[in-house]
C-alpha cells in the first residue's frame, strides 16, 4: 500500500496574529509553525496503514513557513520519505495552484491513498484535497472520522453535519480527515534521530512539469483585519445571588436580549 499524506505548515493555533503592512497577509516574524492540527490525524492514519499493510508512507508539502522542519517532524512521526515542492512561484498562488503542484508530485509516485486534513488551521479553505482528487481523476471523501482498507476497497465514514455516512469504493482515493480520526503518537527521541537521515526531496515547478503561469492564482486575498472589536465587557460584583439578579437586569434593560 502506498499512502501519501499532504501536510501544511500553519501558525500554532494559539498564536496572537498581527496583520502585515499592506494588509495582504500576516506578520510572520516570530511565529511558531507547526503541522496543521487536522493533518496530525491524517498522518497517524497514514503511518498506521503502512505499518499494518506494508508499503510506504510519503509526505508532501508545498513550501510555506517552516515546511522543511515540519516535514522532518512528520518523518519522526513515522513517514518514510518526504517530497517538498520548493519554488518561489508557489508563494501567492491559490488553492488550485497548490493542488496542481501536489497532484503533479503525487502522480510521479503512483499512490493508492492520499490523506489530507479537512481544513488548514490558517486559511480554512477546505479546497485543496478535492481539487487534488479532481486533477488525479480519483474520487474523494470529505470529513472522514473513520477509515479502513478492505481488500482492494476502502471503507470510510464521513461526517456530513446532521448525518454520518459509511461509504465504500475501490482504491485509489483522496480522503480528508477529522482531527478525531486518530490520536497522534508521541515522537520518540530515536525516531527524531532517524528522521534526520530519511529522504527529503525538494522539487521545483519545472521538475513537476509546471510553471509559474500554470499556477497563477484566480483567488487573491487582501484587506486583512482583526474582527470588529467587542465592546469592553465587565465582571459583575456581589455574591452569587446578587450577580444572578444583576445579570438578568442587564440582559433585559441594557442588552435587551431577553
Amino acid at each position, binding site marked *: 500500500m502506498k499512502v501519501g499524506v499532504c501536510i501544511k505548515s500553519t501558525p500554532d493555533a494559539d498564536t496572537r*496574529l498581527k496583520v502585515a503592512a499592506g494588509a495582504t497577509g500576516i506578520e510572520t516574524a516570530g511565529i511558531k509553525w507547526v503541522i496543521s492540527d487536522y493533518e496530525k490525524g491524517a498522518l497517524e492514519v497514514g503511518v498506521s496503514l503502512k505499518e499494518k499493510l506494508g508499503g510506504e508512507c510519503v509526505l508532501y508539502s508545498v513550501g510555506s513557513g517552516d515546511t522543511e522542519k515540519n516535514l522532518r517532524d512528520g518523518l519522526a512521526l513515522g513517514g518514510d520519505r518526504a517530497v517538498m515542492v520548493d519554488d518561489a512561484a508557489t508563494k501567492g498562488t491559490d488553492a488550485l495552484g497548490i493542488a496542481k503542484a501536489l497532484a503533479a508530485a503525487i502522480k510521479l509516485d503512483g499512490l493508492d491513498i492520499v490523506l489530507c486534513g479537512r481544513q488548514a488551521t490558517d486559511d480554512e*479553505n477546505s479546497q485543496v484535497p478535492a481539487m487534488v482528487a479532481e486533477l488525479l481523476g480519483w*474520487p474523494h471523501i470529505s470529513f472522514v472520522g473513520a477509515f479502513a482498507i478492505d481488500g482492494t476497497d476502502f471503507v470510510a465514514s464521513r461526517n456530513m453535519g446532521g448525518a454520518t455516512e459509511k461509504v465504500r469504493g475501490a482504491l485509489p482515493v483522496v480522503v480528508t480527515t477529522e482531527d478525531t480520526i486518530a490520536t497522534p503518537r508521541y515522537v520518540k527521541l530515536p525516531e527524531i534521530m532517524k528522521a534526520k537521515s530519511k529522504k527529503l526531496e525538494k522539487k521545483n515547478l519545472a521538475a513537476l512539469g509546471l510553471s509559474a503561469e500554470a499556477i497563477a492564482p*484566480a483567488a487573491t486575498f487582501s484587506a486583512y483585519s*482583526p*474582527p470588529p472589536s*467587542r465592546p469592553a465587557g*465587565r*465582571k459583575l460584583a456581589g455574591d452569587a445571588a446578587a450577580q*444572578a439578579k444583576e445579570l438578568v437586569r442587564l440582559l433585559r434593560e441594557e442588552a435587551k436580549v431577553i
Partner: protein
Amino acid sequence: MSGILVLAEHEGGKFRKGAYELLGKAKELAATLGTSVSAVVLGDAPCTELGAFGAAKVYQVEADFSQYNTLQIVRALHAAVQAADPDVLLISGNYIGKDAAPRLVARLGTGQGSDCTELRVEGGAVVGRRPMYAGKLLADVKISKRPAVFTLRPNSFPQPTPAAGGAEVVKIALAADASDGRVTLVERITSQVKTANLTEAERIVAGGRALKSLEGFDTVIRPLAASIGAAAGATRAASDAGYTSHDEQIGQTGKIVNPQLYIAAGISGAIQHLAGMRTSKVIVAINKDPDAPIFEFATYGIVGDLFEVCPLLQKEFEALAKAG
C-alpha cells in the same frame, strides 16, 4: 450570458432556508451589478416558486439525486454552469459547499472564496469577506476568473420576503455515468438532534468540561436553557466526555452559531470553541477562574461556581417568565 447563479438546495422537494438566503443576497448583488439571477436545482422540486425570490431562470438538472454522490453532483453543477455561463456562482458553505464545490472549481479552472460571511460589489465585481485563522482575522477574497465561486457560511444573510413572479424552468438531462458508481453508500445514520435548533437559535446556553458528567449537564445546563427558551450547546471537551452528543458541539469542528445571547458556563474559551461563537451579540461567561480567556470576549462575566450560579440564574429567568 452572465449573471449570478445560485445553487438552491432542497430536501425531498422542500427548499432549504439556505436556498432563500442565497437568493436574497444574489438579488441584492444583481441589482447593483445590473444583471440577473438564476438558480440551479438538483432533482425534483417546485422550481417555478423560486421566481418569487428573484430567480428569472431555474436550471433543473434531471437525475436521481436521492443519495449524496459527490461525483454526480459535480457533473450536474458543471452542466448547469455550462448552460447558464454565469459570472458568479453561489453555494451554501455546508457539506456540499465544502465537498463538491472545490472539485467543481478545479474542473472549471477558476477560483473559490470559502465560507464568506459578507458579499459586496466593488469595481463591477463581487468581493467576498470571510473569517480565517479561527476567526482571529478577516480578509477580502477576489476571484479573477469566471465564474467566481463563493461558498457562504450558513445564516450569514437574512431570509428574503417573496414577491410576485414565477421563473422560467430550463431542464437539463443528466445521463448516468460510470463514475457515479465509484463510491457507494453502505449505511446512513441520521442525527437525533435537529441541527437547525442550534445553528438558528437566538439564545444558547452552553456547558463545558466543568459540568463533570451527563447528569451535571442534564440537571444544570438543559433546565437553564429551557428557562429562557434557549438551545443547549457544548464544548468539544464536554461532548468528547459524553455529557452531550457531538451534534451539540460548537466550534471549529462543530456548529457555527450566531445567537443574540450566548451563555457559556464552565467553558475556558479555547480558540477552537471561540471560532464557533465569537460573533454572538451578547456573551455571558460563568467561570470560577477570573483569568479564563472567555472573559476577554464576554459582555458580562460572573466569576463563580457554575453549580451555584446557574440554578440561581434559572430561578431569576423563571420568575421573569412568570411576571410576563
